């Protein structure tokens, strides 16, 4: 949503700390921030909590927001770090909601040779990755977000995104081969 064309005053008022302006931005962007957070934390309940936490951080940081810039990329970066903090507090086995495990067992279209067991072990290995690598890989590989968007959200370069994806896949391959699975 383009807030700048018809809402630059909202951004200015938000920067000055007006709660009404913050509510306007919240209602406008909660869906997109929630969706972004859900892609990272993979748990709808946790995504709601992290979304509220992210907006709380935005509210506290209102004075540092540059009202000449777009709100959404700034919001996405704060939400990404809030999600990363949540992931770091989780144990690997709790990092995906049960309903998501159920979809892992479903046969994937286009490759019947890949058994459900291999996919489940891959998902478990993925959950054991360091949070920083897991977030990058889930956004860039699983969710197929543009690398530039991922880089902006993480506050790193596109090259750093590629490097983290490479490291994540290498660690996954190593973990799986220790379990006797050769991708």
């Amino acid at each position: 949503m383009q807030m700048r064309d018809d809402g630059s005053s909202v951004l200015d008022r938000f920067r000055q700390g007006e709660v009404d302006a913050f509510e306007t931005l919240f209602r406008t962007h909660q869906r997109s921030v929630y969706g972004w957070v859900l892609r990272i934390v993979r748990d709808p309940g946790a995504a709601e909590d992290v979304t509220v936490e992210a907006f709380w951080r935005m509210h506290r940081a209102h004075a540092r927001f540059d009202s000449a810039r777009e709100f959404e990329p700034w919001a996405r970066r704060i939400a990404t770090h809030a999600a990363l903090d949540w992931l770091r507090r989780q144990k690997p086995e709790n990092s995906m909601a049960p309903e998501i495990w159920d979809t892992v067992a479903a046969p994937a279209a286009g490759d019947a040779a890949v058994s459900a067991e291999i996919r489940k072990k891959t998902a478990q290995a993925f959950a054991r990755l360091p949070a920083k690598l897991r977030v990058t890989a889930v956004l860039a590989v699983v969710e197929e977000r543009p690398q530039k968007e991922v880089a902006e959200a993480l506050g790193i370069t596109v090259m750093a995104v590629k490097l983290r994806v490479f490291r994540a896949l290498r660690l996954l391959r190593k973990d799986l081969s220790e379990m006797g699975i050769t991708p």
Partner: protein
Amino acid sequence: MMRLLRESVPRVGDSLEPDRDLWPAMLRRMDEQSVPGAASVPWFDWALAGGLVVFAAIAPRTIPVILYYL
């Protein structure tokens, strides 16, 4: 490996909405944080108060003087 990862970790999709409006939860969070609590008092003030208590315990005759200036 990328393909295996995509087949193992499903996308969450594009039609993503929270089950409820999160603004009430946001308001509650803002209300909780606006209530002054122990955490909102700077540590220096706590240290100063602690020092005064210790001083008063060592020299109880100074208590009226301290209370006068408080």
